């Protein structure tokens, strides 16, 4: 670890002001000593760079899955003062509202005699990988409705149940979507890709609930030991990517216009209530809504297959919850001695609101918000709950996954897809992807151990474990 970094508690570290010139607040991140040994200097610098942005409140935060990203580190969280703060696509990422959801089923392992066949059927049912095409024919007007109404629109056109919508963060649609700021190019990329999984670290995983850590909350969330469930991880596809590309150009100019002194052009930004800042927010919110619709459509495809294959009803496969990983949102938090409206950027981080927050759906409000924390193909995922500690320490945020620690390039040189797939098969996990390389690049050991990352967020008091979930079959994009 860099000599200037101060370990202020067993799992908490501080980057002091002055680490890079112009820091307005310190940086702070959560890591165990073991995980800290793998932290890249580039991620530290990015966390410090975020601390130079105008209007940043309290500190620039890093979750334990922190690694080198674009602008902000992945695992980065920052909140900005409404009057003096900025909004930056570098604090959201190219894949706007990349997120994860989990649905449960009434099945147990004994109900799935042939896992390989199930995974193969899912691979056919859900468009996956580069070049995959949408199962939905969308007109421009249809797309407009989707960009405004998000998950509810997908349900309205036949993909899902009304009860799904309220189980999504923001009820599956962010307010403030402004379609005029979504370009024709973004629309062109979005229309053919809605309802597709994508590639890279996006996945669809069939899992079994292996251990319940908090029986009361598990019951509230509707999960039980031995239950088969499905996790879906993807985002706003080409539409969101294009929105990021388009608005980065605009915000580069805005950075000069508003004379914002930046240490890194990837942090291009504009004041929150400037025309450029509001345009980006409007387009980003529309992209986030598209992402919720995307995951909703995939959910329907999964339910359709499970229903046909196992004779179960859609209503027996409820959505536990859907969380966003890459987003900037208006929220109320305590900061600088008062309760105030702030813009929270989460870049590879998850909202983790504690008990009693009015944003949490009524039936979960006394338990805390469900947080879905995916592992890697070979390591466990977790269902967590948000805490009061997260509200106090991290603007209601926690980790979003295990966090990558090795490059795809080194994984491909070191491993073949066949080796990884065979190893996983020996552990009872079936994996399917469009190519062998896709499996090698996403080998479990290129990620931090998910159990260690979860331990850190629990030790930090920003989440608590509800259930541990074991993968039995994975589709990688």
């Amino acid at each position: 670890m860099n000599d200037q970094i101060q370990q202020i508690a067993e799992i908490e570290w501080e980057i002091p002001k002055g680490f890079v010139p112009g820091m307005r607040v310190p940086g702070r991140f959560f890591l165990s000593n073991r995980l800290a040994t793998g932290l890249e200097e580039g991620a530290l610098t990015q966390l410090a760079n975020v601390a130079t942005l105008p209007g940043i409140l309290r500190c620039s935060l890093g979750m334990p899955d922190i690694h080198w990203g674009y602008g902000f580190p992945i695992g980065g969280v920052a909140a900005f003062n409404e009057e003096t703060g900025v909004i930056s696509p570098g604090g959201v990422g190219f894949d706007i509202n990349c997120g994860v959801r989990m649905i449960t089923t009434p099945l147990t392992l004994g109900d799935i005699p042939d896992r390989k066949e199930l995974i193969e059927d899912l691979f056919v049912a859900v468009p996956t990988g580069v070049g995959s095409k949408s199962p939905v024919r969308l007109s421009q007007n249809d797309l407009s409705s989707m960009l405004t109404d998000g998950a509810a629109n997908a349900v309205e056109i036949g993909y899902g149940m009304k009860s799904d919508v309220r189980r999504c963060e923001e009820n599956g649609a962010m307010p403030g979507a402004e379609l005029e700021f979504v370009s024709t190019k973004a629309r062109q990329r979005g229309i053919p890709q809605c309802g597709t999984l994508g590639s890279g670290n996006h996945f669809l995983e069939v899992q079994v609930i292996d251990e319940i850590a908090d029986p009361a909350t598990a019951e509230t969330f509707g999960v039980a030991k031995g239950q088969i469930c499905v996790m879906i991880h993807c985002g706003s596809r080409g539409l969101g990517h294009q929105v990021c590309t388009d608005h980065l150009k605009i915000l580069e100019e805005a950075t000069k216009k508003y004379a914002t002194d930046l240490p890194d052009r990837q942090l291009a930004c504009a004041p929150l209530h400037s025309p450029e800042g509001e345009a980006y927010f409007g387009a980003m919110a529309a992209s986030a809504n598209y992402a919720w619709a995307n995951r909703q459509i995939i959910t329907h495809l999964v339910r359709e297959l499970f229903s046909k294959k196992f004779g179960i009803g859609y209503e027996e496969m409820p959505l536990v919850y859907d969380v966003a990983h890459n987003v900037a949102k208006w929220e109320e938090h305590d900061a600088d001695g008062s309760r105030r409206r702030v813009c929270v950027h989460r870049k590879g981080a998850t909202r983790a609101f504690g008990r009693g927050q009015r944003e949490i759906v009524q039936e979960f409000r006394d338990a805390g918000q469900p947080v879905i924390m995916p592992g890697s193909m070979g390591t466990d995922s977790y269902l967590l709950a948000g805490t009061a500690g997260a509200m106090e320490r991290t603007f209601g945020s926690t980790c979003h996954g295990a966090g990558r620690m090795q490059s795809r390039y080194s994984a491909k040189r070191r491993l073949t897809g066949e080796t990884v797939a065979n190893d996983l098969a020996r552990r009872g996990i079936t994996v399917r992807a469009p190519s062998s390389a896709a499996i090698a690049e996403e080998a479990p050991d290129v990620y931090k151990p998910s159990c260690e990352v979860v331990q850190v967020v629990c030790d930090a008091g920003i989440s608590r474990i509800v259930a541990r979930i074991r993968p039995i079959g994975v589709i990688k994009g």
Partner: protein
Amino acid sequence: MTFEELEHTADVRMRITAPTLPTLFAESGFALAETLYGGYRRETPVAAFSINAEGKDWEETIVNFLSELLLLIETEYLVPGSFDLVAEGGVIRGIVSGVLFDRTKHSGGIGVKGISYSGLSLEKITNGYELTIIFDI
């Protein structure tokens, strides 16, 4: 092949060299296609599209050029096989030709979300130009 992949934890980082700017742009296009289609063969083109980009400097132009190419790839299902380009005064213009995406031949790669300014450098070297660029995946 005049491009090579370098280490990067989360994304794909490429170093590309070429004797001229038009060939540098073409090779950067092939590097993008290789990332998307992993080990694909360049086949006799059956489709062609015009492609133009400009910027305040060549670095910005190449980011805009690759962003335009990515748009063509995603919306026209184009798999690039050849480029015919002219570079002048910060502007690149020309034709990209290729075949249409075929899942049985072009599924060896990974989706690219965008072209990053992170770690971007374009330098004049003894025998031409060298570009280092990150594709956000």
